[in-house]
């Protein structure tokens, strides 16, 4: 398991560095605009007031976009960061196993005395490690720049919100991995399906406040339980995060069970 983990990390080291750098740069650049927003909040407030309600619900779960929490949520946490984490996690989930199966190198590994579960565990550990590296980099930069620009928010809560965002991404990655672990047929659509669920979920949930009929289906979607502003303000119900975690664990278990018995290749 360890050699699989290390080899996977080695193979993805530049991509991981790229993701860490990219996400950090996005966070840093946005936070650097905070002083401007704060200083011109009156004028910006008038502009915002004239925008349609759907715009606001699309960019944030906060009603006051100019407050520190509203700024953080609308610029970073509500849409862009979870999407980036989701794309990263789904691309990991849909390639960690499937790429080796498609290219045939999986047989090279399975010809060793390595139980399939352990092989998959190594791959999962690699995915988890990469997500953790990028999350830590993003959190560090967010804390550093929030402090630098004087954003009046608890640094711990900023970290928690970023962690929640990564956790939700991880869950979609788990879905992609489970689909590709169940079989090549389901694996083929794993990335598309997971991404569609993530983006579709976001659209439905961000509009639920405007359309009553969306309220009920929205409750079925993960995005409904992703409330970064609440995290920043300290009012988040962390049971929701445990829900994400539990679903991720269940998906991992499904991946294990599916992969350990099925035919490889073809």
């Amino acid at each position, binding site marked *: 398991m360890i*050699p699989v983990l290390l080899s996977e990390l080695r193979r993805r080291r530049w991509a991981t560095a790229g993701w860490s750098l990219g996400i950090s740069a996005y966070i840093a650049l946005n936070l650097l605009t905070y002083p401007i927003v704060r200083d011109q909040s009156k004028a910006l407030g008038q502009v915002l007031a004239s925008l349609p309600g759907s715009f606001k619900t699309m960019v944030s779960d906060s009603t006051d976009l100019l407050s520190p929490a509203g700024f953080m949520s609308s610029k970073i946490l509500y849409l862009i960061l979870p999407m980036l984490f989701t794309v990263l996690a789904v691309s990991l989930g849909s390639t960690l196993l499937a790429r080796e199966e498609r290219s045939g190198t999986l047989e090279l590994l399975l010809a060793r005395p390595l139980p399939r579960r352990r092989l998959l565990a190594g791959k999962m550990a690699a995915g988890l490690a990469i997500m953790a590296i990028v999350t830590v980099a993003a959190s560090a930069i967010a804390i550093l720049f929030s402090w630098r620009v004087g954003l009046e928010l608890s640094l711990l809560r900023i970290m928690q919100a970023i962690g929640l965002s990564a956790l939700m991404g991880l869950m979609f990655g788990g879905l992609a991995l489970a689909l590709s672990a169940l079989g090549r047929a389901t694996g083929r659509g794993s990335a598309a399906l997971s991404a569609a669920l993530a983006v579709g979920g976001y659209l439905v949930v961000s509009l639920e406040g405007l359309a009553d009929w969306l309220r009920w289906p929205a409750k079925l979607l993960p995005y409904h339980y992703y409330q970064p502003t609440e995290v920043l303000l300290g009012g988040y119900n962390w049971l929701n995060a445990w829900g994400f975690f539990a679903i991720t664990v269940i998906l991992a278990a499904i991946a294990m069970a599916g992969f350990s018995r099925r035919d490889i*290749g073809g």
Partner: protein
Amino acid sequence: MNAAISLNGLSKVYAGAAEPALRGVSLAIAPGEIYGFLGPNGAGKSTCIRTLMGFIRPTAGKASILGLDIVKDSVAIKRRVGYLAGEVALYQDMTGRQLMDYLSALQPLKSANCLRRLVEDFQAEMNRPVRELSKGNRQKLGIIQAFAHQPEVLILDEPTGGLDPLMQEVFYDLVATASGDGASVFFSSHNLSEVQRVCRRIGFIKNGRLVAEHPVNRQEAGAKTARQRFIVSFDGPAPYFQIKNLPGVKVSRQNSGDLTIEVVGELAPLLKLLGQCRVKRLTSREQDIESEFLNLYQEES
């Protein structure tokens, strides 16, 4: 005696396939035996091999390697088996060296010497990324990884594909040495003469069924029971009936007037008779399994 590899009614129907790819194959390979697996494209050779390796599950039947069940004890089996895939797939951006390091981290080598010798014998390119290697050079890496941990059983799917004649010889030597050390070798091939030369026994699979099995007994090739075939041209009329009357001889006349003579047992009477005739040309054709197998390939299923 326990077989090194034993298949008992092994069958496989791929998910969604109408026809079985493997239909009740039974065979047994002894320790130290080299067994060649022949058959037309799509006959089920790779399916059989991949089932043995636990990559795909048998639909029916059982098989064991070194007494271990291929489904239940797959991991234990792999400690003792070396495998080469029909289409060797390696990590494109690793060098041969990195590949061997990775694989031996997953399965420790009994001796580093063995790997070193394999690399030398095959003159393998170890320091260039796999993507830059020719097909034959990739195949060498595939063979090396199968033999490097000195397995007791080797399961090889078309191992000589892409190797040049010199490297094929190196491979034959390697197989012979492994077999001499007690390892069993099960390999598929499309090369009849290779299989005849290297294997002690040959199985022929067609449409998922094992349709023929033949011992190849080189020691007995010249002995009493073996059948030999000659094609003889004569200067003048052929002594057809005289030859026909010899014991243990079958003869037929070709369109050209040449005779095809098959002898079982003693050659002396035939040679004595031919000595009295004006023989223009005599060619010996070992009555090979080859023609027999070619028939198997051609037969309608």
